[in-house]
Every structure is written in structure tokens, then in C-alpha cells.
């Protein structure tokens, strides 16, 4: 029983990581209708920026804020310089550019900071948040930060004119433009926000998985699964999806162990964690293509 609780707690902690990255994916999807494969590497790069600042003697939170702001500007610049010429290009060209960005960020980070893993500090006090060894203080902090970012995004999209304009620009650029929305600026803004959310995710993740250029590889995969499971159009759904994937993969291993203990037969276990999680995602998407909490997009042709 103790193990079950620990596994669920550890699953929630991992889920918080996936949820954080999934949020950044949703962010860019909601504002540009693209899925950014370079999201993880951009977040990794932002995290290195903040790490470098901390090494230079800047405090954690100032470094955090600077990294988020720089990432925002960086995101806007990437949209302006690299994606702007591709506005009318087919989706495949855009995908290739995303993969190119992924490789570029990864190599540049490796060249500047080397591939040696680095410690990344946690801003959360160890004593105040520790829940009897079940779940670490940092993990609790990550869950809280994820929920805060989620609420902020919800308020932004739901209640501000700018948020509304961004959604309009993504969903129907032509009508939005006719209604007076500056679609190009909205896309750039969307990229900036996604990069900023990604930076937050990276800085939360780095303490847990350690800072290195490939730290986001596996995480991005799970984050995709979480975002798709919850619904890539719905930030709340994506966060929930992230948590679900995190808990699910731990339970697969746990119940695999239980079955093995009872019957002596190995059916599933640690090796199949990702497989089972992805099979469940496929099942959900087959039955409910927009995800559990996603909005069904109807396109008039």
C-alpha cells in the first residue's frame, strides 16, 4: 500500500513536468495552429540562460524573470525572422523548420555549455513543503507553479481582449484580419508566450532531471501524449492530461509488479511504461479525436 501511494505521488510529480511542457505546446497550438517540435529544446536553452545568470551571481528569482523575458523576446524574434517567410508554405515545410530548430538549439547549447550534466537549483524551501518523504518539496513546488501558469493563461485567453484576438487570429486568420485583428503580431505574440511558458517549464524540470542539452528529449514525448490526451486546444485539459500520463506510467509498472508477484508471469513492467501510455492515448484519440477535454474544431470548406 505504501508503495502504491509513493508511486502515485511520484507519478503526480512527473506528471507536473509533463503538464508544464504540455502547456507550452498548447500555447503555440492555440495561437498558431502548429505543433512545435523544437519546444523542448527552446525551453532547455532558456534554462541554460538562467543557469548562466545564476553562475554569474544573479539570484534565482531575478534570473528566472530575466530568462522568461529573454525567452519571450527570443520567441517573437524566431517567429519574425524564421517563420514569417513560411506563412503560406505547406505544413510539411513548417515541420521541417521545427526539426531544424530542434537540432540547432541542441548543438548550440552543447557547444557553449558542453554535454556534461549540471545541477540546477530548486527555489522551494525543503522543510516547508516536504510531505513525509512521499513527494519532494520541489515536486510540490512544480505542481503549484504549473497551476499558477495555467490560471494565468486561462484568465489571459478568457478575459482579455488581447487573448481573444489571439484566439481569433489562430482559428480564422482571414476573418480576424477583416475584423481588425493584427494577425501577424498575434502570431509573434503567441510564439513569445509559448517560449516564456516553455522557459518556466524548463526551469522547473531541470532540478529533477538535471541540466543537459538532451534533457527534454524524453519529456517532450510524454508531454505530447499528455497534451493530446487532455486535448491540445484546452490548456486545462493538457495539464490534466500531463498528470494522467505521469500517474498512468507509474501504475503500469506497479500493477505489472503485482501481477508478476501473484502469478509469476511477467506481462508488463518498466520496459512497457511508454508503450502502454501511448496505446491509451491512441485509444482515446480514436474514440474522441479532440482529446478528453478538447473542443471539436469544425472547419467549413
Amino acid at each position: 500500500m505504501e508503495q502504491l501511494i509513493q508511486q502515485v505521488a511520484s507519478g503526480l510529480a512527473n506528471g507536473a513536468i509533463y503538464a508544464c511542457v504540455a502547456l507550452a505546446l498548447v500555447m503555440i497550438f492555440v495561437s498558431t495552429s502548429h505543433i512545435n517540435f523544437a519546444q523542448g529544446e527552446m525551453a532547455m536553452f532558456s534554462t541554460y540562460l538562467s543557469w548562466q545568470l545564476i553562475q554569474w551571481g544573479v539570484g534565482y528569482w531575478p534570473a528566472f524573470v530575466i530568462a522568461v523575458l529573454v525567452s519571450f523576446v527570443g520567441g517573437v524574434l524566431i517567429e519574425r525572422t524564421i517563420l514569417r517567410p513560411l506563412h503560406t508554405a505547406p505544413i510539411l515545410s513548417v515541420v521541417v523548420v521545427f526539426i531544424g530548430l530542434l537540432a540547432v538549439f541542441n548543438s548550440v547549447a552543447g557547444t557553449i555549455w558542453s554535454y556534461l550534466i549540471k545541477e540546477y537549483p530548486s527555489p522551494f524551501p525543503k522543510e516547508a513543503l516536504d510531505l513525509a518523504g512521499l513527494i519532494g518539496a520541489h515536486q510540490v513546488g512544480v505542481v503549484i507553479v504549473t497551476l499558477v501558469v495555467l490560471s494565468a493563461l486561462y484568465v489571459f485567453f478568457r478575459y482579455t481582449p488581447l487573448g481573444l484576438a489571439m484566439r481569433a487570429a489562430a482559428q480564422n486568420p482571414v476573418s480576424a484580419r477583416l475584423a481588425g485583428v493584427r494577425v501577424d503580431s498575434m502570431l509573434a505574440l503567441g510564439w513569445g508566450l509559448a517560449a516564456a511558458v516553455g522557459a518556466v517549464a524548463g526551469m522547473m524540470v531541470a532540478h529533477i532531471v538535471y541540466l543537459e542539452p538532451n534533457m527534454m528529449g524524453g519529456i517532450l514525448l510524454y508531454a505530447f501524449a499528455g497534451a493530446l490526451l487532455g486535448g491540445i486546444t484546452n490548456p486545462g485539459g493538457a495539464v490534466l492530461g500531463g498528470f494522467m500520463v505521469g500517474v498512468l506510467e507509474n501504475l503500469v509498472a506497479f500493477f505489472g509488479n503485482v501481477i508478476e508477484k501473484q502469478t509469476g508471469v511477467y506481462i508488463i513492467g518498466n520496459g512497457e511504461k511508454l508503450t502502454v501510455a501511448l496505446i491509451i492515448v491512441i485509444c482515446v484519440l480514436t474514440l474522441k479525436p479532440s482529446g478528453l477535454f478538447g473542443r471539436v474544431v469544425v472547419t467549413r470548406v
Partner: protein
Amino acid sequence: MSITRRGFVGSASVAAATLASGTAIAQKGKYDVGASDTEIKLGHTNPYSGPASAYGVIGKAIEAYWKMVNDKGGINGRKVTFISRDDGYSPPKTVEVVRQLVEQEKVLALFNTLGTPTNTAIHKYMNARKVPHLFLATGASKWGNPKEYPWTMGWQPDYHTEAVIYAKHMLEHVKDPKIAVLMQNDDYGKDYYEGLRDGLGKNVDKIVKHVTYEVTDPTVDSQVIQLKDSNANIFFNITTPKFAAQAIRKTAEIGWKPAHYLNNVSISVAAVMKPAGFENSQGIISAFYLKDSTDKQWDSSEDMKAWRAWMAKYNPGANPDDGGNIYAYAVAYTMHKTLEQCGNDLTRGNLMKQAASLKKLVVPMLLPNITVNTSATDFYPIQSVRLARFEGETWKLFGEVMSNEGA
């Protein structure tokens, strides 16, 4: 009357050629492609780019080693030409650059090609072409199989041997051992795991729990919880640096206190112990065969002094705390001595023969009493290690040299 140096060398070599009567051409020795009176060509692959490029320091350091050898007059008068190519740790790329090295550059031998999957990709090719494939930079146990692969030889203590030694230590020093194993789910992990099982012998049922992780897993937290739940009192940690650091930290976080054995792959203080937290790393046991440049006890030893002088003169940009520079120096020295031992018979066959007849070769930077030994049936050059325990902020060696020689 004065004899100019050139005049002297000229007349000396004429004399040498005259002495070697019977040979039609005025050559000093017997050669295969890649070697001549003046040159020995060696090929090498290493990841200088991509995810494993942290190993790039090894290639650069080996290059610096040959530069020193050449400055001192080369090996039996022949300069070493060292051609090092980037394969990005990607097996298909390795095949491509190795074919270039063998077929276009026409190297005498490949030396210290890095990586288990990359060397696996060229294993058959090298043996089919009968080109020496020497002192590989990987600890897999499959490189010591002279019957089927007489042209391939590893160098460092293989994973299997190392695990056998841990198993011996566990049985001797832990009361009522119950072993939990965390293993990376690939050839490297399985090599260690098999070694542990072999080392335990009839006590193999002492392994109470065995869990694996994939390199795509973000963390190994879930696995460590499963291991703790098995009530094991020994933790055998077969993980690469990032996961090793995670596992060490998680073990401490959930209050599990087993006797912790960590594989030699992840002994870096900078990349594992420090990120995991020194307070979480106390008492962990691992195996060593090389001296550590951060360990003060070697500061006065001759080989450490020579190594530092070489670092300062030939490899000044490199980080002296990076173990790759020590490894490179020692493995290049082994190759140096092997080539020297070949004398004037630089054929591929003789090179393999000499590599397989190293007897108690003392190699600088190896721990005292650890020597290189090979024979026609023993293609495992180093099979001894010393155990060390992590105390404070460094590894402290303890006990005698432990060996699995001849296995």
C-alpha cells in the same frame, strides 16, 4: 674534420641497407599498408558532435599524445600519423568513416574507436578485412573473443569482469545479502547484469528485485521506489551518469539505505556525485583501475608528474579534472608500447600478435599493481580493479587489487 649530421645519417642508412643484404628493396622492415620506414598510420573514430560529444576530449588527448611521441623521434624512427574522424556516436556514420579510413586512407590499424553500438557496427567488417581493431574505448565483454574475432581487442576492464568483482565483494561483506538491481535496458546493462549473476554463482537467488529503465525515461524515481519496496539491503546501480545521479538522490530522498554499488561508468565526481549531492553519495562503492587527477595521494608519483607535464605542454586547453585525459594517455601508451614491440615487422598480423603478447606491462596512470596482460587466448588487457568508497567529496580506495584474470 667534421662529420655533418646529415652525412652521418646518410652513411649509416647506407650501411644498414647493405647489412640487410638479401632484401631487394632498401627498406628497414616488413610492412603492410599504412606503415613504412617513416610512418605509421592509425585510424580513429570518436563523437566530436552530437549527444555523446563529451567523449571528444579522448580523441583530442590521444592526438596530443602522438604529438609528444613524434616530437621525441617517433616509434623506432617512424612518425605516427593519427587520423581521427567524427562519427557523432551514430553507427551508420561509423561504418562510413571507417570504410574511408581503411579503404582510402589505408591505415595500418584502427585504434581506440569509441562506443559499444558504433564498434558493434564495424566488428564484422574489420575482421573480414583483417585489419587490427585495437584497444576499443568501450567496456563491453564481447571484444575479447579471439576465436571468432581475432582482429578485435578491447582494453579497459570489461563490464562483466567488474560485476563479477562486485558480486564477490557483496557475498563477503554484506550479511544476509538481498540484492536489488537497477539496469539500463540495453547491451551495456545486460553485460553487467550477466556478470553479477555469474559472480553470484549458486547464490543467484540473492537477487530479489531487478528493474530496468529506458534511456527515454525522464526519471528513474518510479524504479527506485519499486526497489526499496523489495526490502533489499544491497543496491546494484547499473546506470549512465544522469540516471545514476537521479537514482542516488532518490534513494536518499525516500530514506532507503542499502549498501550501494555503482558501476564504473558513472564514477565522475563532477557529473554524478556532485549533482546527486555529496550528502546523498556517502559510502557508495565502485571500482577503479585508473588514477584520479583530483586524488592528492598520487601527486608525488612519477607517472602523475609526467602526465601533468604532458598536459601542460601538449594538451593545455583540456580540463585536467576530466578523466578522459587520463584514460587517453594510458590507452595511447599501451598502443605505443605495442607498436614499439613490433620492431621492424609492421604487418597487421604481427601487430595483432604483439598486442596479444603483452606481459605485465606497467602502464602509467593505472593504479599500482594493475598491469596489462594478454595472450593468444586472453584478449582482455585489463582485468583488475580496486574498490573505492565515496567519502566526503572524493573516492577513497580500499582493500587490495581484485582480479578476474584469465576469465
